[in-house]
C-alpha cells in the first residue's frame, strides 16, 4: 500500500474493437502538478475521462487513496465531488448565471446552505477575476472568461484534485494567456493536485512537477520536465517536442 492519491495499474480502454489506452501505469502523489502531452488522438483525454469515470475503463484498476474506483460499493458521486474537471469546451450550464454555475454543485452535492455557497463562489470568482460578471449568462461572455468561470466552479467544490482536459485548446490565441495565468497561480500557490492534458509546452515545462508523454494509447516517457524537455530518453519524445517547439 502506498500513500499515493491515484494509483493507476494496467489501465485499458477500448471503444468496440478500437483500443484507445493500453496498459497505462502511473501514480500521482498529493500536491503534484502533472502535465500529459502528446499528439491529438493519442488517448490523453480518454485517460483523464477514465479517471473520473466519464468513460468506463475496460481493463486494469484505478485506485484513489487505495480505494478501487470501479469497485461495487464505491460512491461515484461523492468521489466526483472531490475530483474536479475542467473541460475543453467549458461546459458551463447555459441556463444559469455565472454565480449559479458555481453554486449549484455546492448546494446540491455538498449540501451547503445557499448563502454559504454563494460566499464561497464569490471568493473563487474573485480569484479568477470574474467576480464582476457573476450575474452574466455564459453565452454573454468570451471563451477565456467562460473557462475561468469553469475553473471557479470546480474550485468552489473544494476538490482534492482537478483534471484539466485541454483547457486552452478551444480558445482564440489572445485569450489563452488569461486562463494560463489562473492555472499558473493554482499550480504555484494552491497546493492542489493537478492533472493537465495540454498542448501548452510552456506550462508543461515551467509549472509541472512531472511530464507524461503519451503516444498511441501508451505512456512513452514519464519524468521531470527538465529531463523530458532537455534530455529525453526516448527518441519519440524528442521528435514530438522538436515538432511542437518548432511551431512557436
Amino acid at each position, binding site marked *: 500500500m502506498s500513500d499515493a492519491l491515484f494509483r493507476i495499474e494496467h489501465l485499458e480502454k477500448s471503444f468496440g474493437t478500437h483500443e484507445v489506452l493500453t496498459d497505462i501505469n502511473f501514480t500521482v502523489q498529493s500536491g503534484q502538478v502533472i502535465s500529459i502531452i502528446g499528439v491529438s488522438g493519442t488517448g490523453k483525454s480518454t485517460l483523464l475521462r477514465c479517471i*473520473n469515470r*466519464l468513460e468506463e475503463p475496460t481493463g486494469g484498476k484505478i485506485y484513489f487513496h487505495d480505494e478501487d474506483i470501479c469497485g461495487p460499493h464505491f460512491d461515484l*458521486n*461523492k*468521489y*466526483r*465531488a472531490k*475530483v*474536479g*474537471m475542467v*473541460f475543453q*469546451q467549458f*461546459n*458551463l*450550464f*447555459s*441556463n444559469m*448565471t455565472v454565480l449559479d454555475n458555481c453554486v*449549484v*454543485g455546492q448546494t*446540491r*452535492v455538498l449540501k451547503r446552505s445557499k448563502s454559504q455557497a*454563494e460566499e464561497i463562489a*464569490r471568493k473563487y*470568482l*474573485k480569484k479568477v477575476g470574474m*467576480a*464582476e*460578471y*457573476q*450575474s*452574466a*449568462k455564459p453565452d*454573454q461572455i468570451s471563451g477565456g472568461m467562460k473557462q475561468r468561470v*469553469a475553473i471557479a*466552479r*470546480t474550485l468552489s*467544490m473544494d476538490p482534492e484534485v482537478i483534471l484539466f482536459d485541454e483547457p486552452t485548446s478551444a480558445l482564440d490565441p489572445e485569450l489563452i494567456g488569461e486562463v494560463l495565468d489562473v492555472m499558473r497561480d493554482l499550480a504555484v500557490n494552491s497546493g492542489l493536485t493537478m492533472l493537465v492534458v495540454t498542448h501548452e509546452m510552456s506550462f508543461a515545462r515551467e509549472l509541472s512537477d512531472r511530464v507524461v508523454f503519451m503516444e498511441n494509447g501508451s505512456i512513452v516517457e514519464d519524468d521531470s520536465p527538465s529531463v523530458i524537455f532537455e534530455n529525453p530518453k526516448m527518441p519519440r519524445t524528442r521528435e514530438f517536442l522538436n515538432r511542437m517547439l518548432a511551431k512557436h
Partner: protein
Amino acid sequence: MPTSFWGWIVYLWKAYWPLLLKGAWTSLYISFLGTAIAFVIGLIVAVLRSTPDPSRQQPVRYWMVRALKFLLSAYVEVFRGTPLMVQAMVIYYGLMQYAHIRLPLFVASMVIVGLNTGAYMAEIMRSGIRSVDAGQREAAASLGMTHWQTMLCVVLPQAIRNVLPSVGNEVVVNVKDTSVLNVIAVSELYFVGKSASGTYLKFFEVYSIIAAMYLIITFGLSKLLEWVEKKMIGPENYELIRNEEEPGRE
C-alpha cells in the same frame, strides 16, 4: 331579414354573440388546460423514457424499468396513431357503457385532449432532452450530481426552453382540434356554430364568423407564447457587480 353577406354577419352576431363567445371560451380553456395537462404528462413520460436502464445485476429493477418503458412507448404509439375524434368516442362512450361512468363533459375533454396531446408532447420533450449538449450532463456528473439532480437543474430547464416553440404550436393546434369534441356534445365554438347555422341555414356566414373567431384566438395565443419565450430566455444584458462585498441581490 338582411339581404347582403355583411348584413347577415351583423344580424347573426347580434343574435348569437353570447353563445359564440361562450363557445370560444370553452374552446380556449379546454385547449389551454388540456395542453397544460399534456405538458405534464409529456414531461413525465419523456423523463422516464430517458432514464438509463439499471444494470442487469439487479434483475427485478431492470425488468421493471424495461416494462415501464415498454408501456410508455405503447401509450405514445397508440395515442399518436389514432384520430382524436375516435379516441373521444372510445373513451367517453366506452367508460359509459362498460364502467358505467358518465364523465362530466369538462373532465372528459381534459382527459381526451390531455392524453392525446400528451403523446405528442412526450416526443417533443424527448427531442428537447436530446437537444441538450452532452457536455452539460458531463459537467454536472463531474461535480458529483446524480441523474435526477442533473435532469432537474440542468437538462430540463434547457430542454423546456428549446421546445417552447413546439409547445406553443401544440396549443394552437389544440384550439382547432378541440372542434372534434362536438362528437361528445361539448359545446365548444364549432358545436355552437353548428346549432347557430341550422336555424337560418346560413352556413357560409356563420362559419365565416367562427373562422374569424378561431383566428383571433390562435393569433392572440401565438403572440402570448412569443412573449413567454422571450421571458424565458432572460435579459439580454447583465450588470457588472463592481463591489462584490455588497452583493447585488438578496
